[in-house]
């Protein structure tokens, strides 16, 4: 009856203790290391809904969430060895079926086989912490942060939320290795190296094989990764696949020194984060695909226009020119007395000339000849010469940009010059085109009245579509009285 004696010992402390024991909001108890409550305070009834009688009669494991049973048994082992256990968290199933998270501080009792324990209901604070972390990442995803930003945020949120020694976002490479795209702490990436071969029993390998969230203990696991984990004191980990379009893209993993931390709940949480990462990746991929497809549409249209212009030039225009020359030859060989005939032919020649001029005007609208033949330099100078407002052109390009960019730059300058002539009351325009580490920056600035409304005019809107299609950016600055400046950036062409 040693147990009974010990329980009695607690009781014998006196009235004051009893009152504290009853009033405590935290759950206080004495239990045996083989899993029976010997004494519980009223907070147990209030929190879990079972009667004290029920709690004392059934094994305490009966009340523990099935997914946490194994960890709880291991925790009991620690206590059985006479060690203390701090901030151990597990789930209890309440009488009404709801689930509460309890955080335990437990210490071996004065008598062998007994423990004194205090637990706090941390259900709400855990949920709040998790919600906050998920919300932070979801916000990043929603505002289209770059994948790198999302990966980094996820890694650090997961490490802090799961109280893990580390967390990693890894991507499966076609060569069978894993590349580390983000980690917390960051130093870990440096330690792991940018890539890791997957040839053993580690989380990344297990998750890739199964396509499912997984849990692992590194204690006896074979392979270089498991060995490395042991070396830095990591004994267990959880991981979840990052699935993008039903394909396994990568893995989200976390690891602990304390083997009790890798709970089924940790697996669930990491899976939630893996899903957010997947959404961020899918978003980016579809956005990239959209930009590429718009670029293709624009490039196809430009190519068609270039071809039409070419066909007009080589065909109709060339034939008309030849006809005009034939006519001229004919006129020159007329006998001097056929003046009437000469006048008639000369009229036809002038008509041909006008048709040719009109045709050239149409061609110019379709695709600029100077651009196709000589690139941006001659093409922009041609535009400048035709402008009603004097234009200063400065071009600093090491080489001809890709055709789509070249055409876009041309239309940006053409549209801007048209607007200057229409609205700006300017006396001078500066056109500046330069390459900056692969990017191309185009600036068209005038000294006119300013106050241009970017939302006005379909010309600018059309330009924006063209610029967007190439992944570029466009900004218009036009303070009243202070001139107008249009700046467009085109990124270096993707490979």
């Amino acid at each position, binding site marked *: 009856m040693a147990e009974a004696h010990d329980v009695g010992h607690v009781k014998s402390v006196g009235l004051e203790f009893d009152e504290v024991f009853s009033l405590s909001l935290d759950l206080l108890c004495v239990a045996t290391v083989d899993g029976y409550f010997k004494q519980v305070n009223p907070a147990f009834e209030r929190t879990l809904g079972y009667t004290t009688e029920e709690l004392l009669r059934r094994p305490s494991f009966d009340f523990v969430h099935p997914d946490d049973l194994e960890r709880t048994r291991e925790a009991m082992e620690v206590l059985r060895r006479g060690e203390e256990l701090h901030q151990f968290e597990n789930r209890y199933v309440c009488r009404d079926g709801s689930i509460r998270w309890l955080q335990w501080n437990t210490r071996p009792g004065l008598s062998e086989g007994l423990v004194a324990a205090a637990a706090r209901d941390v259900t709400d604070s855990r949920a709040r912490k998790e919600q906050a972390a998920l919300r932070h990442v979801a916000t990043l995803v929603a505002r289209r942060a770059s994948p790198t930003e999302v990966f980094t945020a996820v890694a650090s949120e997961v490490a802090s939320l799961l109280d893990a020694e580390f967390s990693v976002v890894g991507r499966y490479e076609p060569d069978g290795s894993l590349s580390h795209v983000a980690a917390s702490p960051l130093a870990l990436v440096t330690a792991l190296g940018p890539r890791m071969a997957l040839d053993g029993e580690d989380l990344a390998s297990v998750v890739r094989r199964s396509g499912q969230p997984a849990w692992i203990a590194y204690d006896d696991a074979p392979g270089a990764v498991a060995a490395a984990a042991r070396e830095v004191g990591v004994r267990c980990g959880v991981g979840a696949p990052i699935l993008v379009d039903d394909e396994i893209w990568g893995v989200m993993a976390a690891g602990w020194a304390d083997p009790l931390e890798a709970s089924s709940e940790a697996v669930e949480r990491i899976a939630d984060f893996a899903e957010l990462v997947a959404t961020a990746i899918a978003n980016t991929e579809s956005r990239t695909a959209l930009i590429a497809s718009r670029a293709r549409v624009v490039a196809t249209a430009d190519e068609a226009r270039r071809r039409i212009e070419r066909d007009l030039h080589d065909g109709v225009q060339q034939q008309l020119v030849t006809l005009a*020359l034939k006519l001229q030859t004919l006129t020159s060989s007329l006998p001097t007395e056929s003046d009437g005939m000469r006048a008639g032919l000369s009229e036809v020649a002038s008509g041909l000339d006008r048709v040719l001029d009109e045709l050239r005007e149409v061609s110019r609208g379709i695709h600029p000849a100077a651009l196709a033949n000589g690139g941006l330099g001659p093409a922009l100078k041609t535009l400048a010469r035709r402008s009603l407002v004097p234009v200063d052109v400065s071009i600093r390009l090491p080489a001809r940009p890709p055709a789509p960019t070249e055409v876009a730059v041309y239309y940006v300058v053409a549209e801007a010059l048209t607007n200057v002539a229409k609205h700006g009351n300017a006396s001078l325009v500066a056109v500046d085109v330069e390459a900056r580490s692969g990017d191309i920056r185009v600036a068209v600035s005038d000294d006119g009245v300013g106050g241009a409304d970017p939302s006005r005019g379909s010309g600018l809107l059309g330009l924006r579509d063209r610029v967007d299609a190439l992944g570029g950016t466009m900004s218009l600055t036009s303070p009243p009285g202070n001139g107008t400046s249009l700046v467009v950036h085109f990124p270096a062409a993707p490979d």
Partner: protein
Amino acid sequence: MTLRAVIVDHNAEFLATASHLLEQQGISVVAGASNGAEAFGSVEEQNPDVVLVDVHLGGERGLDVAERLSALGGRGRPVVLISAYAQRDLEDLVRASAAIGFVSKARLSANAIR
């Protein structure tokens, strides 16, 4: 002295018509060529006073041909670029090229070349 010219243009009909017209106006068109390679042969052979080169030679750029012809040194010949485009469309190209001038095809005449 009669001006001797070689015309380089990939449109055979234009070549014939232009030669006829220029001959009529007192220029001796000593050869016609449809591409850069033929042009070099003709220039070597005929040593003309001037070479008229179309800006578009099918797949070839007339500007490149003009540059190579002018770069022949002592055996090089002055090049006048021709095109169905108007002068104002190609002015800056021509200015930056090795050619000494430009004549729009529709305005082709002995006077324009001289």
